């Protein structure tokens, strides 16, 4: 399965959900990530139920609170 994650194409052997991808990609703080799935922001409860498929585009968007 080919996924595009933050603009980079990657190959994966196994089927997985968005939650599993966060683990596989070693996202340290999943609470700090918003996920855009094929152009739409996913609701957090849908991370566990959204099964990824070939050619999906995923963006991990990080909370960034600094500024002063």
């Amino acid at each position, binding site marked *: 399965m080919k996924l595009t994650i933050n603009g980079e194409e990657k190959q994966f052997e196994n089927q997985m959900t968005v939650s599993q991808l966060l683990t596989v990609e070693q996202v340290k703080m999943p609470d700090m990530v918003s996920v855009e799935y094929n152009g739409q922001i996913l609701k957090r409860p849908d991370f566990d139920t959204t099964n990824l498929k070939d050619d999906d585009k995923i963006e991990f968007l990080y909370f960034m609170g600094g500024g*002063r």
Partner: protein
Amino acid sequence: MSLNDQQIERYSRHIILEEVGGAGQEKLLNSKVLIVGAGGLGAPAALYLAAAGVGTIGLIDADNVDLTNLQRQVIHHTADVGTPKVQSAQNKIQQINPDVKVNTYKAWAKADNIAEIVRQYDFVIDGTDNFPAKFLVNDACVFEKVPLSHAGILRFDGQLITILPGESACYRCIFNSPPPANAVPSCSQAGVLGVLAGVVGSLQATEAIKHFLGLGDLLTNTLLTYNALNMQFRKVSLNKNPNCPICGDSPTITELIDEEQQVCNIKDCKC
């Protein structure tokens, strides 16, 4: 208003640009920008907007200048330590450009004061350093329909998006609500490369100026991310989110609220 001789000279490098001209410069002089937070992002934004001749600049900040600020908050100088940031910033703006009217608000942006301030301006720059303030500024701009440049920075990373309320994705379209406690490092705990604030704050000022002049493409429905270590800028396309709690199809947020501050102590932080 027409430009006097001094102004024609001062703004000559703008006026000579076909896309700006005398008419564009007059638009800038008639524009009002509110900068929330006179710190890392607000400092470069205020300096460039003042130099550009944005006619009115509002500054909100309750803080005094601290020695730890000077590594990045370039509008404040060593002699300003201990003085209110809004006063320090006002002094520099007026030294740079006496054409600019500066309104200062020595207060924190809160649900009970932000809306009435925001509505007096044409564009808002978010230079705050915490999630409750970032969500509050977003919400106030959505309710008051005032365009906003949102930005965040941390360590070596920064990101920004321009929000035209009702037309393009807002901050809550991407980030529904503040993250949970103990997940959030702040700049004071995690650190930030000083010049990163300069880059991102200057980009915010660029967006304000482009908005006033009607030039180019704004970062609407686009999150621009920047990493200073690999020098990579990346645009992430976004859409207005129908599930957005404030600008979606069935909003659940109908008035301004002060979200709770959720910043961890570094010792029990998972980060």
